[in-house]
Each structure stands twice: as C-alpha cells, then as structure tokens.
C-alpha cells in the first residue's frame, strides 16, 4: 500500500518536472561572483586631481588641458580667455589597476610623470571591498632657466615629488566620493623659510546629472607647510560631458598649475576675490591593444 503512494508522488514530480517552464533553473543557481564596481568617474582625473578610476588596460588617454586667465580681468582680457596655460599628457592603462602617465605643462615648462596602482578596488559579491584604495607617485621636472645662474645649480634642484593615497567609493550610480591624503616634496624652494614638504588632504567627487553629464569637484586643503602669504588651497568645480570618444571636462578653478606640485603648492588665485579661471580638459582615448572578437 505504501509503494503506490510513493510512486504516485514520483509520478506527480515527474509531471511537474516536465511541465515547468523555467528551463534555465535546471542548470542550477549561478554562484555569485566578485565583480569590480566600474566607472566611478568618467576619467582617471576628477578635474586636477587623480581619481579612483583607472584607464582600461591597453588604452591610451591623450589629454589636452587648458587654463585661461582669471575672470576678474573683465572684458579687457575677455574674462581671461586671451591667456591660456596648457598641459598635454599621455596616460597608459597597463592593467585594470595599474597605469602610468607623462605630461608637460607650459607653466614652468614642467615635465611630470606618475605611476598609479590600486591594491584594492571597490567590488561587490563575495570577498568584496566597499572602497578603492590607490596610490600615486609622481615626479615633476622644472624646465625654466635657472633663476640665479651665477650660483652652482644642480639638476636635482629642478625636481619635486608627490605621493598620494586615494580612498574612494562609488556610493551609487550617480554619486562618487574620494579622499586623497598627499605629500609633496620640493627639492628646492623659493625662500629659506619655505618648507620643502607639504602635507595636504584632497577631496573629490562626482554627481551624475544625466547619463552623459556629471558635476565634479576637487579641493585640496594644505594641512602643513603652506607658505604664509600669497598661496591658497585649490578648488575646482566642473562639468563632465561625454560625447562618443571624448570626455570634455569644463570647469572653473583658482589653480593655474596642472600637476600636483603646481596646483597643490602654487595656487595664487582666491575664489573670494573672483580670481578664478575657466578651464577645460579634453580627453580622447585610443585603444592600442584590441581583444580578439573572433
């Protein structure tokens, strides 16, 4: 008597197996995988500062940066547009968490280079990290003629270095925030009383306004080592616009410099006095190494 009952149960099960319409569930549940959280920023730079985002491996980012004169010059200098300072750079994505770059600025005819590496990247799924932790180390080489050619000058006097940690999180599709503790070391400073080492804390973020537009900002607060007069903390506020292969970063900033040494330690403009300038970064990425699609 027991057996038929059992069989009837099997019978029902076998019918239900046949009748089920979700065939994919037969393959079993997919195991959740660790997945990197991508596209925290549109570009590896917030505006001036490095962002927590990296270039895709095998791509080159050609960047042209312009900073015009200060707006407070009025119509005489067409609100600063008559003057421009620029930096041109080539950045390369080597691995998903490793990139290098080299650039040259008209300001001080300075060449700079950096390497950026992220031991931890924000991810979701098992064993994931809620934040990205990245490190940047860079060097700048002043290219101006010696200010005092009569004294003995060393090449090392042209050099400055910066080291930066980036701790960032893409909180949602639309909002990203990051903090950047930074140390800048200048081998040679203007006055004996000026410190060689500058410690600063940066903050940068992005608020997406639409699929292809975002509000961005970065601010660096110098904590230790700011020369006493004439220098201010750099604040930039901008709009990222993405069009196909380009990213335009339009912004206003009080900084002229476009490398870490220059914009963190040598920003002379004051927001309060209208000494801000219009600027734009143009980024165009090229795919150097293509994956095979066949």
């Amino acid at each position, binding site marked *: 008597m027991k*057996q*038929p009952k059992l*069989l*009837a149960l*099997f*019978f029902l099960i*076998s*019918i239900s*197996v*046949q009748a089920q*319409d*979700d*065939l*994919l569930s*037969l*393959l079993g549940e997919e195991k959740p995988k660790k*997945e990197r959280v*991508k*596209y925290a920023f549109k570009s590896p730079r917030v505006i001036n500062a490095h962002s927590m985002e990296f270039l*895709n*491996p*095998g*791509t080159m980012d050609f960047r042209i940066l312009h900073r015009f004169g200060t707006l407070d010059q009025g119509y005489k200098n067409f609100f600063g547009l008559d003057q421009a300072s620029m930096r041109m750079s080539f950045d390369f994505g080597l691995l998903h968490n490793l990139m290098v770059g080299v650039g040259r600025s008209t300001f001080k005819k300075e060449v700079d280079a950096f390497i950026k590496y992220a031991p931890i990247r924000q991810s979701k799924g098992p064993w994931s990290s809620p934040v990205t932790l990245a490190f940047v180390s860079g060097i700048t080489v002043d290219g101006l003629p010696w200010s005092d050619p009569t004294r003995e000058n060393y090449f090392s006097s042209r050099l400055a270095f910066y080291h930066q940690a980036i701790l960032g999180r893409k909180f949602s*599709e639309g909002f990203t925030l990051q903090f950047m503790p930074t140390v800048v070391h200048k081998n040679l400073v203007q006055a004996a009383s000026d410190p060689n080492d500058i410690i600063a804390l940066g903050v940068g973020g992005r608020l997406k306004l639409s*699929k*292809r537009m975002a509000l961005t900002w970065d601010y660096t607060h110098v904590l230790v080592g700011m020369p006493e007069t004439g220098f201010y903390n750099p604040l930039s506020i901008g709009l990222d616009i*993405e*069009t*196909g*292969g380009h990213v335009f970063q339009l912004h206003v900033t009080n900084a002229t410099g476009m490398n870490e040494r220059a914009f963190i330690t040598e920003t002379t403009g004051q927001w309060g006095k209208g000494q801000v300038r219009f600027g734009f970064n143009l980024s165009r*990425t090229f*795919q150097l190494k*293509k*994956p095979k*699609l*066949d």
Partner: protein
Amino acid sequence: MKKSLFIFLLGTCLLNVANAQKFFTKTGRIDFNATAPSSPENIQAVNRTVTCVLDAANGNMQFAVLIKGFTFERALMQEHFNENYMESDKFPKAEFKGAVANNAAVNYSKDGTYAVTVKGKLTIHGQTKDVEAPGKLVVQGGKINTTASFAVLLADYGVSIPGVVADKINKTAKIEVACNLEPLKS
C-alpha cells in the same frame, strides 16, 4: 490490481523522464553588430558565455545572456554600452523564453540538419518584445548545434541613441546566435 497500477505508474514515470530529454550549454556565443553604414569604426561585440536550455520534448527554449559579458574591441565602447545604453547594473541580463515553433519536424534522435523557426519573448534592457527568428538545428551524435540570426530595433527596447553618434550606431542591431548544446543529465 495493485501490481498493474504499480507498473502503469512506473512506466509513466520512465516515459516522462525519457521525454524530458533536454540539451544545454553555458558557453554559447552571441555576436552583436550595430555598425551604421557611415560609421568609421565597428560597433560590434561578442559574448561567449551564453546560457541556453532546449527541451526536446516540446521544443521549449530559453536563453540567458549577461550584458557585461559582451567584449568590444574598444574598451571605451564597452563602457558606454554598459553604462549609457544597456545600463547593465540595472538590467544585468537579457533573456529569451520561447519555443521551436515547428518542433515536430525535428527528430532529435536522428542526425540531420533541420530548418526551424523560433518564437518567443525577448527581454533586453528591461523591455519584453515578441520575436521570431529563423534558425538551424544540426543534430549530430546526440548533440545539437543551433544557429540563428535576427535583428532587433534598439528603440523597441528603450535604448536611445544620442544625436552625436547617430551616424555611427545603427537603429537596428544584428544578433547572431550560435550554441553547441549537450544533453543535460538530470
């Protein structure tokens, strides 16, 4: 009486199991191409992790595709595909649920090539539409090779193309599906 019921039920169970022969793959391939005729660059991608299950008994067929699994030649294009067009964080999967319309014409136990029509519901970018596509089933040595090709109108699935790239991205994308299905052992 008891015995005959027993045999009847056992037989039905076995029959059900035999009928329920299913085939599957987790490494199917989908080629996507939305290159406009005037475009200087190819807007195309490939996904090699397509999941498909086919029930030979009734021709029911299902596909699942992870949008993030599409690889483009240009990483930036892939980024835009995921972020701006397909919104793959919000809609991680595309799915098809349907059936081989002329399943009776296919003899799954005999080697051969069968022209089929597949009909069903295709869900992309959170939008579901009825689709119908001609395809081919090649039965060989207990395995099935399936191919199909069809076009989707991007606007049907709520994927809009901004003006600046309208000369590059076609309004319809060509989809080619190729799966080697193996028997599913349950």
